[in-house]
């Protein structure tokens, strides 16, 4: 079977050896022309015929070796059911054709950026003495208004935002400034005046109300920050689970396992990430329970 130089030698009567192609020939993966050339060579080359004859058994033995290694890794395998549940939880309830619409895909991010920009602006507005004296014209005010509308998207609230903490958010009694957020106090007053002149007091008041309403929403504790929460839960699970195992503390282990079962798995976000730790906790608790 062996012919290390089979692919490089050129036999005087048989043409180029076909060692490189024998495996693909064996499994029927060659195109018709190459296959004919291989067959023509095989008619004349005993060494290649021997190599082909032995190749199937050799490959089968190698594949058996791989299978054995897989079996040997049984002690490392994750909880398949948990892994499956986490995947299914993240894919169920959505039709394939629905989850890649271009706008739907990016709308949350767009809304998030708009919201973050507006929040930054509001905070700056609340601390005018700390603001750099940026120049901005009143013509940008309508754009801000649009951002406020965009920020109303519910999805934006469910995303993790690099937004100020609730305590940084402005109090409900916002000053009657109508200027765009990143404007110096002097310029803000000018802008407000210009805007009032241009669009009338009603429009300026409407813009102020929108900003205040948005600020109130930001000041509320966010009811939904699933990714952030899940990451925190995963970290807590790892920290507390490992500590429980180290201290051999059954009640702490039970708490960590509850966090795993009740929160991480149902959330479907990173749910199966630390199955080994969960398994260890179960094994630790089993004799105790």
């Amino acid at each position, binding site marked *: 079977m062996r012919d290390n130089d089979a692919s490089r030698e050129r036999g005087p009567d048989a043409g180029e050896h076909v060692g490189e192609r024998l*495996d693909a020939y064996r499994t029927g993966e060659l195109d018709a022309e190459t296959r004919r050339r291989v067959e023509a060579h095989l008619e004349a080359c005993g060494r290649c015929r021997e190599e082909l004859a032995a190749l199937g058994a050799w490959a089968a033995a190698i594949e058996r070796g791989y299978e054995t290694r897989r079996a040997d890794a049984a002690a490392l395998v994750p909880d398949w059911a948990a892994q499956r549940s986490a995947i299914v939880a993240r894919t169920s309830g959505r039709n394939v054709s629905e989850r890649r619409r271009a706008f739907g895909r990016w709308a949350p991010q767009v809304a998030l950026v708009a919201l973050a920009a507006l929040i930054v602006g509001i905070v700056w507005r609340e601390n005018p003495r700390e603001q750099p004296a940026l120049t901005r014209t009143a013509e940008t005010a309508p754009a801000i208004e649009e951002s406020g509308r965009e920020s109303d998207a519910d999805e934006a609230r469910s995303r993790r935002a690099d937004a100020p903490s609730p305590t940084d958010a402005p109090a409900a009694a916002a000053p009657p400034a109508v200027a765009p957020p990143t404007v110096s106090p002097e310029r803000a007053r000018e802008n407000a005046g210009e805007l009032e002149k241009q669009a009338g007091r009603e429009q300026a008041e409407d813009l102020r109300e929108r900003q205040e309403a948005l600020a109130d929403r930001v000041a509320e504790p966010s009811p939904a920050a699933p990714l952030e929460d899940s990451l925190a839960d995963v970290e807590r699970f790892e920290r507390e689970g490992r500590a429980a195992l180290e201290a051999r503390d059954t009640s702490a282990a039970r708490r960590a396992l509850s966090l795993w079962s009740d929160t991480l798995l149902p959330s479907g976000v990173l749910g199966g990430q630390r199955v080994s730790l969960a398994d260890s906790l179960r094994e630790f608790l089993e004799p105790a329970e």
Partner: protein
Amino acid sequence: MNRDPGGTTRAGTTPLEEGAEAAEEAALIARIAGGEPHRYGALVDRYQRRLWWSCLRMLGDPDEADDVVQEAFVRAWERLDEFDPARRFYPWLFTIARNRCLNALRRRRTWGFLSLSRGDPPQIAAREGAGEWAEDAGLARALEECLGTLPADQREAFDLRHGEGFRYAEIAGVLEVPEGTVMSRLHRAREKMRDCLESKGWNP
């Protein structure tokens, strides 16, 4: 002389069986994409173990492999409408997972193949037994030791061909090289593996 290349294919399946499996899988994927998303779990059942093992070999970390498997299945789900039903699903899924493994390895800045040539990891207890099992275990150890001597490009091609059962075109797609390159790499890898295995007393 047996010159019936269509007689057997990978892993002992016949072309007919392989064709039937492919047709059944294509029908399943069509149903999932056509509005029966709950059937995706069947694909997960079918491939999660195999994919996890492959990721474990690349990453050397069971938890990290678990993460990549989940992410790859979710990503495959999101891109299912791009899947070509004329092809097999697993190599496509594997390509997604492999890219994620490579990203993880880049982040780690080490090539973390679970090289069994450096000795069995302590968690993987080599099972001893009698008869064929012991023989297979010995062969498996020799196999891993010899794989560790191959250059990375040959080892990966060898893994994909003999460990994953991929076709040449599929390997070429995964590695993004021409099929001829795959044939060359595999031929050189097989020569080295034969030499190495024979030096360890194995001549399968």
